């Protein structure tokens, strides 16, 4: 019982698991939102209530009738949208605010933004309702055609098996056709029903929960190896129950741990998703009623599938745990064992994520640790892989593999637990390690102090793994800052067409456009606005002494202006947190190793070492900057390349930047923006470095920099206003400050100056303490 209590009831571990559960739930909610604001949360809740109501009202009706109802809903939303944006055409159904409000009286968020006349929020709300209805429509189309789909699978298999194009008799292709038809035969006659699937679908999309599950398993397995770290292994091994019996007990703990992890990171997000989206009553439907399970050949209800899925999830956790336990347990050198495990996981992830389904090696994709991490894919994807010419379903393959590998790793783990000794084991790896170390020493002997600092950061402090994490984490950032919906399509279309320097050609264009617009009031109205705009720009440019350009405000608004505020902040928060975590171990590692007195006694161990540490922190910050902001540049280049056509224009051509205090082109403006972000991020890195100097070990350093720098940034991004004053987030994001300067507000300079002072000040204090003594 002692071991159970030690592992499962350890306060630190319990706290960590509880924190992870909260984070997992929080990230799930965030994954449902386009922006992280209370407004967005309210909008999501309102859209969900709207869908719930429609589902309840329409349930049981024929599919064609339901499809017509969704179209009517789209029509209703579209009418209000057209009216709001000032469209004018003959069939306009709405002509006043009263009529618009009456038309969407049951949609409180729409009414709210109509009344507030907030175009941005109105468009976003409209899009949310529209998309929700589109999802329902897509589900109806799927359900109405499912029976035909099943029949088509059978007839297609029959047809294809009669032609030599699909292989000879006895070939994998022919057998695969027959197996597919056979698998789907069992589904013939299955009754699919319309219902609310959003809760289930959003939960299935949330893969982060699977990684939390994996992390929890790793935490539990690491608890088994604590005795080695604390030097208690010989003592534990010398006790009566310290060998095989301990191994068996720990297997039980691993199973219990996997159950707990499944509850925290799979069941709870599902419950959360269901409570947000409704859908409790629809669990008795057949599994295929949910479009994602279209190709799942199991004849089950959703509820039955969930029970089976959770059981598989628990067993997957045990299997992964046994594998990790075996690798970490059999290799005595902790750093080497972690490196082996890291490499193994990286290779497996690479195969899982990047191997094409059609590849001849696709078995490695599904016979893979990550197939056991993302267990839901085994049910939502139908695929037979070629096993010596015979088609085997990936689900069956993975489940059989689970049993086989479970037994194998279970036996290996017990064998290690029983026979592995704290000292004097036959160490095959050390024979390999020696020549490897010899070769590495030859390379390392050429490293300068800066090279050594980089090496320590990347290898000894697991910087490489953290950097891989940074690449993965920043890959999930959102750069599509705002809903790309024009407020006035014709006006925007003309501006798009005319974008460039204002010249006589501009006037010619307007004249020609007027001719072709003929009597179209809508086009003429838009052209009037264009003409006024051209005039304003000319006048402003003359006064300011720069060349007038037509530049689409909207492109810059959604890229770098107010419309992208929340996403800019969220991305900056991620950049701040990741930079802080990457830099956190730099000094703390030295304290943890206990080498500081020795380092400080060497002639290059003070100022020189300090400068090299600062350089390493800066380079790590540059890396994060590259992952977040260079990626953003690529995104902008790819999706909004028109911005690059205006790089030579003055920023003052943009309304929002009309009062910008410096005469800059857009190219210079963007260069300054990205350089500012880089400088601020380096400032964050140097601040984290300074904090790290005061931390006794790496773990404490991670916690402190996360709390001091990362957490306030995340809270600011989540909308907790107070923290914007104590976090480097706003100066790192920079866009809103630079945009604010465009409005002539010089106070926007303050956050940059303050955080620059903080970074420089922290570095100065740290330098003084390290170089000058205590």
């Amino acid at each position, binding site marked *: 019982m002692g071991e159970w209590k030690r592992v499962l009831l350890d306060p630190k571990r319990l706290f960590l698991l509880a924190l992870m559960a909260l984070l997992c739930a929080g990230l799930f909610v965030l994954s449902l939102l386009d922006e992280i604001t209370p407004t967005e949360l309210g909008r999501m809740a309102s859209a969900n209530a709207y869908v719930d109501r429609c589902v309840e009202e329409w349930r049981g009706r024929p599919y064609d009738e339901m499809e017509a109802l969704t179209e009517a809903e789209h029509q209703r939303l579209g009418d209000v949208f057209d009216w709001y944006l000032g469209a004018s055409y003959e069939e306009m159904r709405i002509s006043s605010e009263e009529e618009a409000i009456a038309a969407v009286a049951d949609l409180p968020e729409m009414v709210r933004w109509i009344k507030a006349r907030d175009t941005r929020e109105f468009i976003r709300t409209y899009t949310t309702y529209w998309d929700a209805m589109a999802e329902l429509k897509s589900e109806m189309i799927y359900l109405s055609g499912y029976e035909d789909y099943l029949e088509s699978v059978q007839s297609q298999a029959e047809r294809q098996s009669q032609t030599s194009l699909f292989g000879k008799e006895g070939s994998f292709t022919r057998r695969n056709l027959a197996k597919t038809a056979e698998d789907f035969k069992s589904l013939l006659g299955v009754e699919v029903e319309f219902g609310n699937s959003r809760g289930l679908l959003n939960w299935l999309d949330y893969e982060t929960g699977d990684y939390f599950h994996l992390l929890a398993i790793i935490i539990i397995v690491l608890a088994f190896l604590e005795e080695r770290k604390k030097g208690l292994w010989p003592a534990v091994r010398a006790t009566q129950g310290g060998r095989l019996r301990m191994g068996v007990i720990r297997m039980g703990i691993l199973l219990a741990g996997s159950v707990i992890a499944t509850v925290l990171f799979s069941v709870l997000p599902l419950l959360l998703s269901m409570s947000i989206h409704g859908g409790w009553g629809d669990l008795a439907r057949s599994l295929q009623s949910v479009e994602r399970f279209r190709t799942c050949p199991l004849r089950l209800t959703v509820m039955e599938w969930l029970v089976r899925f959770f059981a598989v999830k628990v067993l997957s956790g045990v299997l992964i745990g046994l594998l990790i336990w075996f690798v970490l347990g059999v290799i005595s050198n902790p*750093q080497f064992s972690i490196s082996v495990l890291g490499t193994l996981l990286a290779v497996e992830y690479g195969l899982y994520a990047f191997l094409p389904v059609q590849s001849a090696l696709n078995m490695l994709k599904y016979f893979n640790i990550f197939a056991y991490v993302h267990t839901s894919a085994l049910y939502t994807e139908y695929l037979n892989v070629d096993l010596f010419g015979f088609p085997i379903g990936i689900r069956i393959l993975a489940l059989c593999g689970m049993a086989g590998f479970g037994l194998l790793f279970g036996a290996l783990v017990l064998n290690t637990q029983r026979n592995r000794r704290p000292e004097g084991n036959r160490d095959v790896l050390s024979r390999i390690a020696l020549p490897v170390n010899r070769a590495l020493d030859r390379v390392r002997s050429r490293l300068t102090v800066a090279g050594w600092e980089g090496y320590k950061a990347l290898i000894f402090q697991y910087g490489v793994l953290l950097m891989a994490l940074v690449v993965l984490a920043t890959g999930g950032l959102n750069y599509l800052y705002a809903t790309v919906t024009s407020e006035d399509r014709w006006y925007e279309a003309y501006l798009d067409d005319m974008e460039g320097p204002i010249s006589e050609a501009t006037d010619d264009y307007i004249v020609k456009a007027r001719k072709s617009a003929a009597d179209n009031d809508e086009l003429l109205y838009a052209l009037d606005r264009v003409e006024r705009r051209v005039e304003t720009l000319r006048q402003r440019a003359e006064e300011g002494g720069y060349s007038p350009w037509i530049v689409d405000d909207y492109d810059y608004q959604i890229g770098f202006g107010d419309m992208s505020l929340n996403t800019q902040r969220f991305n900056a928060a991620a950049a701040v947190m990741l930079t802080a975590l990457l830099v956190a171990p730099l000094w703390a590692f030295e304290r943890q190793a206990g080498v500081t*007195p020795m380092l400080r006694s060497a002639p290059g161990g003070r100022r020189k070492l300090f400068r090299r540490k600062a350089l390493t922190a800066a380079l790590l910050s540059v890396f994060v900057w590259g992952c977040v902001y260079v990626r953003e540049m690529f995104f902008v280049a790819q999706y909004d390349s028109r911005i690059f056509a205006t790089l030579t224009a003055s920023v003052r051509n943009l309304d929002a930047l009309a009062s910008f205090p410096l005469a800059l082109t857009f190219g210079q403006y963007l260069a300054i923006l990205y350089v500012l972000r880089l400088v601020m991020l380096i400032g964050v890195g140097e601040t984290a470095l300074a904090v790290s100097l005061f931390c006794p070990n790496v773990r404490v350093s991670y916690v402190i920099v996360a709390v001091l720098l990362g957490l306030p940034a995340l809270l600011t991004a989540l909308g907790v206003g107070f923290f914007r004053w104590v976090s480097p987030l706003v100066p790192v994001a920079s866009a809103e400050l630079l945009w604010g300067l465009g409005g002539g507000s010089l106070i926007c300079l303050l956050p940059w100056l303050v955080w620059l002072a903080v970074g420089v000040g922290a570095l100065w204090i740290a330098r003084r303490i390290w170089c000058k003594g205590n």
Partner: protein
Amino acid sequence: MQLELKNLTKRYGELTALGDFTITFTPGIYGILGANGAGKSTLLSLITDNVKRDGGSILFDGTDILKLGDEFRAILGYMPQQQGIYEQMTAEGFVTYMARLKRLKGKELRAQVDEVLSLANLDDVRHKKVGSFSGGMKQRVLLAQALLGDPSVLLLDEPTAGLDPKERVRIRGFIKELAKDRIVLLATHIVTDIETIADQVLLMKDGRLVREDTPQALIAAVPEDWEPVTGRMSLEDVYLYFLGE
């Protein structure tokens, strides 16, 4: 060459770790004897400027070491008492890293790394991770790094802790050889470490210098009616007599 400590004082709150400590070191081996907490390590930390002094001065050839800064550290070799070491590095890697910090380069760096590893008897294990070493082997790695740069002032804090008798004898002989033209301060509470090699012995208690003399003179200073603990009068008797422990 001389290292002069004048009225050196260090306090930790109410506790005086080192009080009014005055001494001049010239080339030779100085054994610093004292119980745990006597102030031996504090003294070495003050000389390495790892601890800030509260009073007094440390002069190397007449100039304060704080003023000399890196110039002083360039002629300093320090082996700390705590076995602080990068467990992930190989012995050669660690010594090479320290050599870089001691501003050694190119062929000179490689030659010195080879030499100190050989002196510390680490040749056979130079490519093994320090984390897999026994306490004695780690101690030798720390000694090896202290010898880099041919230091004129060598500070060794408990250099033989954890070493087996054979290794201790070897290291002692080696330190004796090193002492030519160097100031070697050897802090320990193991009397036999310094009995045969120290030119001078400093007896410390509660942060103060109780007595300083050659081992022979100290032994002679013990009264004749003192009953030797090992049958013949030795430094252990000096330790017990003067330090009362």
